[in-house]
């Protein structure tokens, strides 16, 4: 049996205390790796439980305009895998915040998946969520992650029938990510009607914590989303806030305070 990762330990601790979790996404290197390091520390201070750190990719086909643009800025500013892992290692000297790497497959394959996974483990990351690696294709990669005690978070969506959900949760560790609606990442005005149904169906099939994401942008929204889930994921809205903040210290402080309002809304549930 493996040791619990920081991700699993944090979510288990929340559950034991009857609290809901808050997961925040940021794109690594947008607009610089130093900025990302600072933002992650601020997110932790704001009460964020898990940080999803986006590995920038040139062709992010599951992402909407906000995260596409963030990846573009990160790559233009010179974000590379080794620099990103350097940032994670530096961050680990100051913080134990659980870190989930959120990536497309190709940037993880180019130097060999095993080596990439070892880099991530030794830098101090806690797991991977690989967007374009469905469970059918994932067996070997997940074995590699298991050997390194890294989580592999699976995604379930409104189009996934029960048999698929079963297979996905069985191959997942850390938590299961429920995508609240059909579409790409990006802010929505309200929670999709199918989300609750999907959460309930997923819950019946797994003991892993279940997080709901895609499109959550306001405290009310986050509080509503977390009713049936163990945690919410907020991505594009946070990326957008920090981008609009012009990445000044005061701007970032204000953006982090705004994230704090979402976190508090979730913690009250």
């Amino acid at each position, binding site marked *: 049996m493996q040791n619990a990762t920081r991700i699993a330990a944090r979510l288990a601790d929340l559950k034991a205390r009857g609290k809901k979790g808050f997961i925040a996404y940021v794109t690594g290197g947008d607009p610089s790796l130093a900025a990302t390091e600072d933002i992650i520390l601020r997110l932790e201070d704001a009460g964020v439980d898990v940080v999803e750190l986006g590995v920038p990719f040139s062709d992010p086909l599951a992402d909407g305009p906000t995260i596409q643009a963030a990846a573009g800025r990160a790559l233009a500013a010179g974000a590379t*895998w080794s620099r990103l892992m350097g940032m994670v290692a530096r961050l680990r000297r100051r913080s134990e915040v659980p870190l989930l790497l959120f990536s497309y497959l190709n940037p993880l394959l180019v130097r060999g998946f095993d080596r990439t996974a070892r880099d991530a483990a030794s830098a101090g990351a806690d797991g991977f969520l690989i967007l374009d690696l469905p469970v059918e294709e994932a067996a070997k990669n997940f074995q590699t992650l298991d050997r390194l005690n890294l989580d592999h978070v699976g995604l379930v969506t409104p189009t*996934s029938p029960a048999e698929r959900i079963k297979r996905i949760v069985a191959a997942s560790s850390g938590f299961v990510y429920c995508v609240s609606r059909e579409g790409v990442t990006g802010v929505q005005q309200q929670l999709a009607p199918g989300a609750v149904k999907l959460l309930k169906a997923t819950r019946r099939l797994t003991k892993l914590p279940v997080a709901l994401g895609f499109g959550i942008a306001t405290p009310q929204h986050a509080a509503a989303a977390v009713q049936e889930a163990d945690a919410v994921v907020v991505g594009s809205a946070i990326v957008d806030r920090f981008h609009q903040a012009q990445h000044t210290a005061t701007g970032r402080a204000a953006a982090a305070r705004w994230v704090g309002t979402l976190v508090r809304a979730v913690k009250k549930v």
Partner: protein
Amino acid sequence: MSRNVNKSAGQPGRFGPYGGMFVPEILMEPLRALEGEWRAAMRDTQFKRELNDLLRQYVGRPTPLYHAARMSAALGPEIYLKREDLCHTGAHKINNSLAQCLLAKRMGKTRVIAETGAGQHGVATATCAALFGLECVVYMGKVDMERQALNVFRMQALGAKVVSVTAGQQTLKEAISEAMRDWVTNVHHTHYVLGTAYGAHPYPGMVREFQSVIGREARRQILAQAGRLPDALIACVGGGSNSIGLFHPFLKDRGVAMIGVEAGGLGIRSGQHAARFAEGRVGVLQGTRTYVLQDDEGQIRLTHSVSAGLDYAAVGPEHAWLHDIQRAEYSYITDDEAMDAFHKLARWEGILAALESIHAVAWVIKHTCRRWTKKDVLIINLSGRGDKDVQQIAAWEQAHRKA
């Protein structure tokens, strides 16, 4: 129906180590449904009859296999051109669009979307959507919209909405990503008519089957006209649908060489090309494992070709497999060589070929004397006509005369 597709150990749609289904989870079930519907349709005699009737009456099949006498006299071997340029809408793309739109109708979808590079697939899909009364949206890179303005007008005249894609380098790759984003959002009522033998399973195998009509006809025609099988097949390779459509029915004919011609752009050393087999390495892009032009970080490289339809960073997975097992060989032609061949073919045969297809013609002009003699028989797939390219060619020539 799908020879050479391994369905091993829960890993569907493999061509050796290539292919697969590398897509977001949200598309897995829709792709499985599509595969099921495709396989059911191919067993359905009524579907097949409807498709074949339309291929004959609407598309104008079979297309001629034309013996290019003056070109043959100039170069040596007997050269035959498979005239896909004579299909309705001017390229082979309609073979696939027609079949997929029929499938969409069968699945009860009311809306089709497509990506397009040169615009030929967009025009073919817009045409078939009009034919079946389906709503149609075509995603096209902004750069391609400029260099293929005529096709933009044609799609709009056919009732399609053409959406300009401004991400990245604003060409085919970004158009595919944008079409996939639309599909994940509207998957309930929308079918994605992918235009080439690329992407996640079942597309590479399905598009190849729909395009194999080219090779089946060509095989029958060359046996009737030349009395024997050809020595070589030559076709351009962007995603690779016209080439796989020609090659596939000949795969078991071991004596038939197959040459796929990629876009050499400004030359391999310039770095500005789309020759995936020259400089690509194995990766995963837009649903499939194949040869991809990428940098040391796994970021997709920018590509260049004078031909919008060949200007793409990855190649269909079955080509990757045919390359590795050495059943087909892959080469490239530069922009300059393609432009030169455009004029040569026009003067020899009175045919203005598409800039994509002319890469295959240019390869034959460049390499024939070293490999073949008068006794040999070659088939070139003339996958599309050049009307869409004339303005771009005129502009290119003006720029080069100045230079």
